[in-house]
């Protein structure tokens, strides 16, 4: 099999311990905790999926997307509409939500991938604000500023803990897919586009096509996050699709480390835990997180996990050549 060469197997084994430990914690610990922590854990899972969608673009493709909130919102709104106004089954609503987000990602992606640098960031944020304005101003159908309340998951998933396990399954699936993507030939072509787009074109990588595919996959992942978040939060509002919502996954992956497999998950976990702790003391959470993001970007651009991994790798592979100063 093409993607199971030795290098990638060793990559998997290197991270296997961590994945195993994480899985045990994620499965075994929540039942022992109170409802508050289960709700929080669920949010961590949703935001982890969301952060992975941003990491795929920023960490691996090197494009800063400020528009992930749009796909989150489109996925969330479609699920909300289907569950409140029609009687379709829950899985169908989820699939429809993801499909809607994917289509919207394809439309905005068509525009975005034709631009580079700052234009890409601006155009993607414009895509998010379009969704925000439509949901904000349409009262008759989308509930306007108040959003759509009273969205209930099916009875089998109505408990907080059962829904948590449902989210956990989906998050694990997304993580595996994410791992397969970033370690595939396609994932390496994205890294190549990030590091040197001209050379990527020269060696025959279809730059635009691959960027488009990555953009759409990222949109679908964000849409999935929105689709499973809405039945859990019971409400969807325009604030879930604006520019600020779009910044959250980017910041999470930057905090955790966008180029590390577990970076987005780690960043999302840190973010949600810090938020819940800070909010018990003060309502001015944006000041705190704004300062943290500034410090991380200025002093450890690889994120927390990126920094740790860099130290870890350096201590393991210290060879005489590497320690000698190069002339």
């Amino acid at each position, binding site marked *: 099999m093409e993607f199971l060469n030795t290098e990638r197997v060793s990559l998997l084994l290197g991270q296997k311990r961590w994945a195993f430990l994480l899985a045990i914690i994620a499965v075994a610990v929540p039942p022992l905790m109170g409802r508050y922590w289960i709700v929080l854990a669920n949010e961590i899972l949703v935001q982890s999926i969301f952060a992975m969608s941003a990491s795929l673009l920023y960490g691996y493709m090197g494009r800063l997307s400020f528009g992930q909130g749009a796909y989150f919102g489109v996925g969330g709104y479609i699920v909300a509409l289907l569950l409140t106004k029609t009687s379709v089954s829950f899985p169908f609503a989820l699939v429809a939500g993801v499909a809607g987000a994917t289509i919207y990602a394809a439309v905005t992606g068509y525009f975005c991938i034709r*631009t580079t640098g700052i234009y890409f960031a601006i*155009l993607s944020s*414009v895509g998010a604000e*379009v969704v925000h304005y439509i949901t904000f101003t349409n009262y008759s159908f989308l509930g306007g500023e108040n959003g759509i309340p009273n969205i209930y998951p099916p009875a089998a998933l109505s408990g907080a803990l059962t829904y948590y396990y449902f989210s956990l399954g989906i998050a694990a699936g997304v993580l595996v897919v994410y791992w397969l993507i970033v370690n595939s030939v396609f994932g390496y072509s994205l890294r190549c586009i990030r590091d040197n787009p001209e050379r990527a074109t020269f060696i025959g990588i279809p730059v635009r096509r691959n960027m488009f595919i990555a953009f759409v996959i990222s949109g679908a992942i964000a849409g999935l996050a929105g689709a499973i978040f809405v039945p859990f939060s019971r409400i969807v509002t325009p604030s879930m699709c604006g520019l600020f919502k779009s910044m959250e996954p980017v910041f999470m992956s930057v905090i955790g480390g966008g180029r590390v497999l577990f970076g987005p998950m780690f960043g999302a976990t840190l973010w949600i835990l810090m938020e819940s702790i800070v909010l018990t003391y003060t309502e001015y959470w*944006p000041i705190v997180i704004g300062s943290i993001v500034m410090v991380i*970007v200025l002093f450890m651009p690889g994120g927390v996990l990126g920094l740790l991994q860099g130290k870890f790798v350096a201590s393991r592979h210290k060879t005489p050549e590497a320690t000698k100063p190069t002339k």
Partner: protein
Amino acid sequence: MTFGDIIVNQVLSGLVIASNFFLAAAGLTLIFGIMGVLNNAHTCFYMIGAYLIWTFHQVLRPGPFIFWIGTILSLLVLAGIGWIIERLLMRKLYSRPFPEILLITFALLYILEDMVKITWGTLTRTIPVPMGFDRPINIMGYIFPVYNIFLICLAIFVGAATWLLVNKTKFGRMAIACQTNREIAGALGIPIPLVYTGIFVLGVVLAGLGGVAFAPIGYIRFGIDIDILLIAFSVLVIGGMGSFTGTILGAILCGEAYSLSLLIIPEMATVFIFILTGIILVIRPWGLLGTAGREH
């Protein structure tokens, strides 16, 4: 009113909206054009300006000149804020890659917006139109508020003054030298830090001036910074990043598009601007008057 009258009226109010967009975007394009820094927190200064003029209306003694005194004081406060932010933060960013600049200025937006919330709360405020400007005027048979005419003139004045400053003064020439080649400009003895501080403070004051000038006819409300930020971005990319003439053109296009779409689908006026942005960028990825290859 005939259909033609409605169109003329809408085109005129489109010019007022264009002035608003231009004042919000002028500082942004100035800072980006000279320093290469896209400041996401820029329109926060617009919102701070609007709140400052409201505060000065509360603390100053009411009189015919309260708006003008308040304007000067607000701009002075904003210049101070801009100076502090430039010295403490922006100065560290000039040599960094642009994604980091975007992330850090976005974090700055988080912080500044929260500080506005702490200082002024989230209530919507209003201030009266300054005395002498609160009556309509008859131009060629069309009734139009005097203050709106003043706003259009203000935008034209600011545009002309900024253009003269950058292109015809020694300070402007130093700024252009820094933009063209920082190292050689430094070697020639141009005080680069001083020029950069000056440009940044100027940009902040321009954004604040937009907020102050449009406070009497708009809302002084929390969250306006994000709304206007996205429009300012659209203005910038339509005109071409860093091109000052392009910004004027972009502002007029966006203002008129906004105003005319108010006639057809009022809810979607802002969305219309964004769609226009997307279409123009696909046709010309570097904007109408931008230069190809300067996208980074």
